[in-house]
């Protein structure tokens, strides 16, 4: 593509929307993280009467919050990798090959999204304890992958479906093996799908609570299982919840920027391949 269009009106409208939908809520959440417990923040005050970093310092000094970020990142990365490995062949077959009962399979792979984590977690908890997988990183990665595979399979299949059949046939008839096709054709051309699916897997792994807790606790504590303290369904402690929100968002923004960078480079590569 040549010069980037600027479309000032569109840009203004979108950024205004982003401000209303994102900056405002986050600003309010940030104010909550600065509320001084002694003073509180009650109606009719539009902003808290006094602000401090007390909640921040207490929470960051607490046992293991920082360590939890590390554990969470390791698990989320492993889950994303495992999910991609498992999903790629399945997605390819669903998108490009004749598979008996394809519709049924397509529906089945979505099922884990519907069945509440509680049900899956309790059932698998019983099984994993017998297999010696309970309370381990591997156990948590395996159980989280159940929840992330549906995204990845569906998104990758959609991305691969958009690759022209002719390209795949041409490559195969030129003697490329399945691995070559995957590495040199599918991965570069469906790269946006990998990034999208990877992000979704990463994020849903990062956020997952129920299955992780039942299989991983007490030895594996992710950020999210620790956060249960402040965000349990029955008790929301606004200032603590706000701090936690920002602790979660910072590594996530980093991941988003990395993904963005990856997307640009590889799009260029994909465009090059497309022209060959």
């Amino acid at each position, binding site marked *: 593509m040549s010069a980037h269009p600027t479309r000032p009106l569109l840009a203004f409208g979108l950024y205004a929307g982003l401000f209303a939908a994102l900056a405002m809520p986050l600003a309010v959440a940030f104010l909550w993280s600065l*509320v*001084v*417990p*002694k*003073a*509180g*923040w*009650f*109606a*009719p005050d539009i902003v808290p009467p006094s602000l401090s970093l007390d909640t921040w310092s207490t929470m960051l000094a*607490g*046992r293991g919050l920082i360590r939890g970020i590390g554990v969470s990142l390791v698990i989320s990365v492993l889950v994303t990798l495992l999910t991609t490995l498992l999903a790629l062949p399945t997605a390819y077959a669903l998108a490009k090959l004749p598979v008996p009962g394809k519709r049924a399979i397509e529906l089945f792979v979505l099922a884990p999204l519907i069945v509440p984590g*509680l049900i899956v977690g*309790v059932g698998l*908890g*019983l099984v994993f*304890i*017998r297999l010696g997988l*309970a*309370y381990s990183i591997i156990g948590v990665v395996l159980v989280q992958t159940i929840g992330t595979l549906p995204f990845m399979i569906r998104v990758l299949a959609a991305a691969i479906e958009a690759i022209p059949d002719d390209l795949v046939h041409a490559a195969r008839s030129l003697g490329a093996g399945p691995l070559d096709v995957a590495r040199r054709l599918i991965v570069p051309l469906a790269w946006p799908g990998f990034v999208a699916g990877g992000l979704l897997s990463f994020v849903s792994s990062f956020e997952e609570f*129920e299955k992780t*807790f*039942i299989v991983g*606790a*007490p*030895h594996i*504590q992710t950020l999210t*299982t*620790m956060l*249960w*303290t*402040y965000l*349990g369904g*029955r*008790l*929301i*402690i*606004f*200032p603590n919840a706000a701090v936690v929100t920002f602790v979660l968002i910072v590594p996530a923004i980093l991941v988003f920027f990395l993904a963005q960078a990856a997307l640009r480079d590889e799009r260029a590569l994909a465009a090059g391949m497309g022209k060959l």
Partner: protein
Amino acid sequence: MFKLLVSTLALTLALTAGARAAEPVGAADFNVKSAIDLKALSPANFVETLLPVARGEGEVVFYDFTESFGPLFNEHLLPRFEKKYGLKVKHVQAGPQAVQQLIAAKMAGQASPADVYFIGNGNIRTANEAGIIANLPLNSLLPSAPDLDPLAATVARGYKHGGIVVPFHRNVTAIGYDTRYVKTGSEPKTLAELAAYAAANPKKVAFTNPARGGSGQGLLESAIVALATEPCKARLFDFTVTPEEAKVWAEGECMTPVLDWFKGIRPHVEITNGNTDTLTLIANGQAHVGTVWEDQTYDFSKRGLVPPTVRVRLLADGQVGDGDGIMIPAGTQKLASALLLTDFLLSDEAQLLKLELNGSRSARTKLDVAKALKPEVLEKLIPSEQYATLARPRIVATISSAATARFVAAILQLP
């Protein structure tokens, strides 16, 4: 009638749970692995017997089902315990779902992932029926707690466990009101006054949906205790009531006066989605009176989530309360440490600090609370004479659940 019932009950329990060497509860043998002879263990030789064994056991895992006691344990109680005995404790915010995990471990024939569990009283029946609670007579074994209220020490939400769960925390449902709008003295003091206040001040009373939070279910139970007619009341503290019998009770005439009272207030109050939700409406200045838990309101006041002007009281009709307890999982491999920790958590030091920090009451009857209650603590709690005379035990859980279902169908469901 009610007092008679409680005192007979207390007497029976006191007779059956005398202070002597430990006997397994409800079985011939202990169901927990122990390096010491449990039958020789008594309050007199407790620490000297257990401490040498505990020193070789390693870190104890302490599961905590609450979402609000974290700071109390992490910053105060556990460090003090570790220092006192030279043992290590790992605190896990385990939630109520930990019960399922403990049952799964037991079904797989494995060691318990937790060594001590601070468990919600509503889960004790399930836990005990699944056999995951060590059958230790904690009610009479702990040297720190010789003065436990006998009812609280053996019964939880109408389930008689016999002493295997020790009451660590007690709380009571109450009425909260903001003195910016309702001066102390003019707040509703009875169910009748509460109904009149709601009618005169539309949307100014926040009432927790009984299906969603204990403070609302507590008001429902309190109304049942106060309004149900005599023959109906007989079953409210009968531990043998089955879910089927409870359903018959709740579907029948017994609930009519109770439902009539709620139908009267229904158009005027805002029903909320939970205990926290009610407090939020009070903080927003929208609700001036609400159904609350005493300890949660105290805790939220300290955290700046409820205005400092909010006070709590008990209705003169009586309001119900209960608590939560500490159990030792039958599958623990660290029994000595677990027992020492449980004993420490029931000590004067721990119980008083808990009251001061979390507004959580104690089941220890001879505890010198006057020492802990500074004026600024006192004013945020229910006045002592009200707590002493108006706090009631919760009715049996089976009837409570059935009555809640009836409430949902009769009051919340549109015709």
